């Protein structure tokens, strides 16, 4: 039976090595918290883990003793014990106490994370973002700033950012693991919560957090990623001003781009806007492309270059099965794709 003990030991080391081998990527992992909400949740995780490790150790000690001491050695009939009131009281009361230790901070944190009173105040200065989820893309509206962007969420660091969440087709769930837990975007109602993006730790994560859809929403659920650009308040204000300055679609810079714009205006503009104006949400049928050239991914998943952009436009179905873009526009020749890519990549608001 030494073999068994050895195996347990090896597995224990393997588990330990696994734990030490890393806590995931700083831009994606909930174990690398980068803001107040994620911190609160990480602290709760640690507290519950320590309590639970304690419980596991007690169980394992009894378990091991039983294994070695009470194996059948002879044909004796052991004493038939009915139970023990003392023991039973001990293992009823101690777990209750442990759970109380966990329950109090849980309840406190649950209320704290749901505190969105600031959103209801008149003349509140708080930044509010309306998140609207669609089959398989994200729409971000800044109602007070009166601008709209998509796929890349832009936020200031070191302040509470408030979110209104809703879905316009099926239920999704809005999740930025490194910054805080998720909240569903229901089709029925608006859900509200807040997040804080910590300046220093956003830097460590390259100022670009990964966001995910966490609720099964169809074939491309796995590909419904978005990115979060975190920047200082000053940079954020500049970005807002630059966005607000775009009243007309950006003029194409080159001849090729001008051709692209023509194609775009014929085939794409029915769904995709290139101005950040605040149209009603139901009218925003596809991602807003005002600052497309400054985004970090094509369609949330592909590398941000012309080649991938052309591939995407040629056949979005291969990249995001079940998306709403496929077959909504005529097939494009390679020349047309070149022109379109040139035009779209030139859509920038910050110079």
């Amino acid at each position: 039976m030494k073999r068994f003990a050895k195996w347990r030991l090896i597995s224990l080391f393997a588990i330990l090595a696994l734990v030490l081998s890393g806590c995931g990527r700083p831009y994606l992992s909930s174990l690398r918290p980068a803001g107040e909400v994620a911190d609160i949740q990480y602290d709760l995780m640690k507290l519950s883990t320590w309590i639970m490790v304690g419980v596991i150790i007690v169980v394992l000690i009894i378990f091991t003793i039983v294994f070695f001491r009470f194996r059948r050695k002879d044909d004796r009939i052991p004493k038939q014990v009915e139970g023990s009131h003392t023991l039973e009281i001990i293992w009823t009361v101690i777990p209750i106490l442990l759970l109380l230790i966990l329950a109090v901070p849980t309840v406190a944190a649950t209320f704290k994370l749901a505190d969105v009173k600031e959103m209801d105040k008149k003349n509140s200065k708080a930044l509010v973002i309306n998140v609207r989820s669609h089959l398989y893309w994200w729409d971000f509206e800044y109602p007070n700033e009166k601008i709209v962007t998509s796929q890349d969420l832009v936020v200031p660091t070191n302040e509470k950012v408030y979110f209104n969440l809703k879905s316009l087709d099926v239920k999704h769930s809005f999740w930025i693991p490194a910054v805080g837990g998720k909240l569903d975007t229901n089709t029925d109602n608006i859900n509200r919560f807040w997040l804080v993006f910590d300046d220093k730790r956003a830097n460590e994560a390259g100022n670009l957090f990964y966001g995910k859809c966490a609720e099964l929403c169809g074939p491309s659920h796995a590909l419904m990623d978005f990115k979060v650009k975190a920047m200082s308040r000053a940079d954020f204000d500049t970005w807002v001003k630059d966005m607000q300055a775009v009243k007309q679609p950006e003029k194409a810079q080159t001849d090729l781009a001008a051709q692209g714009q023509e194609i775009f205006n014929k085939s794409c503009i029915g769904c995709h806007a290139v101005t950040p104006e605040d149209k009603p949400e139901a009218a925003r049928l596809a991602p807003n492309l005002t600052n497309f050239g400054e985004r970090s991914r094509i369609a949330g998943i592909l590398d941000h270059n012309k080649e991938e952009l052309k591939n995407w436009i040629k056949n979005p179905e291969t990249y995001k099965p079940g998306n709403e873009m496929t077959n909504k526009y005529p097939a494009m020749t390679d020349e047309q794709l070149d022109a379109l890519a040139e035009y779209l990549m030139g859509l920038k608001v910050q110079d």
Partner: protein
Amino acid sequence: MSTIAQKKGFGAVLWDYLTTVDHKKIAHLYLIAGGLFFIMGGIEAVLIRIQLAVPNNDFVSAGAFNEIITMHGTTMIFLAAMPLLFAFMNAVMPLQIGARDVAFPFVNALGFWLFFFGGLFLNLSWFLGGAPDAGWTSYASLSLHSKGHGIDFYVLGLQIAGLGTLIGGINFLVTIINMRAPGMTYMRMPLFTWTTFVASAMILFAFPPLTVGLTLMMFDRLFGANFFDVTMGGNTIIWEHLFWVFGHPEVYILILPAFGIFSEIFSTFSRKRLFGYSSMVFATVLIGFLGFMVWAHHMFTTGLGPVANAIFAVATMAIGVPTGIKIFNWLFTMWGGSVKFTTPMYYAFAFIPSFVMGGVTGVMVATAAADYQYHDTYFVVAHFHYVIVGGVVLALLAGTHYWWPKMFGTMLNETLGKITFWLFFIGFHLTFFIQHFLGLWGMPRRVFTFLPGQGLDAGNLISSVGAAFMSAGVMILLINIVVTQVKNVKVGNDPWGDGRTLEWAIASPPPYYNFKQLPLVRGLDAYWLEKMEGKKGMTPAEPIGDIHMPNSSFIPFMITLGLFIAAFGAMYHVNDKPWAIPLLIFGLAVTFGSMLVRSFKDDHGYHIHKEELTQDEKGAKA
């Protein structure tokens, strides 16, 4: 089974099983059908792990992946875990309380056929245009958006199968209340019978909400209603509530009988009475009760608000207490005992650390504020597989080895059994332990692929390797079953030698009437008590007399067949097929016609006469 099989031709055996109302044969049917569905669900699981072994894999398409995960979950819960538990409940519970059958043998057969045809209907979706693809939870907005007939198969198939489960549960309740042998008081019932009792009561209250939800969904999808259509004033959150008001108790409906199986095994192979029997019973009832108070912890991120989330968080944590009581009671059952490590005991012993892992992560996901991180990630996938595989599946495997001799009269090979155990146990931890971390590292659940460069590659590969081990374990078990049945070495009443409860007091497999004379029960572990006093068997509570038996009947099969046909009619009605509505009416006519026949035809059963019973005994001795 095999003794009869040798005497009769295949057709006769088939007819026998199609018409049987004997709880032991129905148990065989549940075991075979549940086992087949378990293998199907397992193949689906392997496909999932192959697809996720490496990033950006295209082994299956995105749409097919969603069908596979949906069918994996639905199959494993409704068509594998529950029927397999029902197999043991049917095979063992009536014996444990000293009864000759369940209270309603006819209804028992009907319950099986409903489950079987419901499952068959659901799985035919693979060949008829695509399986359901909205997850086993089938949340309303996505399931209404889903094209094709997949969700219709889910909605109709589960209604039929759910009906079977519900009447099965009612049958067990009545059996335990009414049919206990003389002296078998409630507080002398074996723990497996107790957990069957509580789980059946939970079925009684949990399945109606599911049926309501499924019916509303059926009307939305097939008959133009708008219960869940937000644009028409419907509400999708209602579906979430209805589903989880059923869904959470369902978890306890599965785990409580598993607890019961392990309680029997711990006690038997430690040669000790169950430690703290009355607190075990109390904990079972308490878990059953609290199981209905916590459904909204599956909806912490739905946006119910902090008050609801806090209440449900604390209520959920409270379940940890009775569960902890059980763990310590099991440990102290072995403490001071004489523990023999047979294959069932391997499973039971390994269940403790495995299930404790699942239990503690259960408390972790109950902390609402932190659950916003865990919810819908691989952490949750790891958690519920630790509970369901580490609890329910280990119990099913343990129960298969433990009660195989009682069900079939043969003993599964111990060496092969232990090989199965090691492969399955190592594979299980390899597959699921790492998934806790995948979730925390930012991997949502139900994703058909993941992109490279997110730190998720190694963890997913480890998990997939584990799945291979588990599959190998199941294959060895199948080989074990075939080898054992081919060798067909018969065993006696109490093949483990340490049997404590009434099922070990009679032959393996028991005669079709179970007990020639109902036994007199003088305490907990009735058979053990007699053995300790040096007696060979139970003291009879009645003189030998005629035994009243029910007749076999083909009507349960026909009632169900009608519903099965009607479901196709209901489903194809949306495609404006001219034959759809007539088919629906025809199917329902078959069902209600069969019921009518059952109602008007007197069927009083038959009697086995005293003389035959005594002759049987002489024959057995000779």
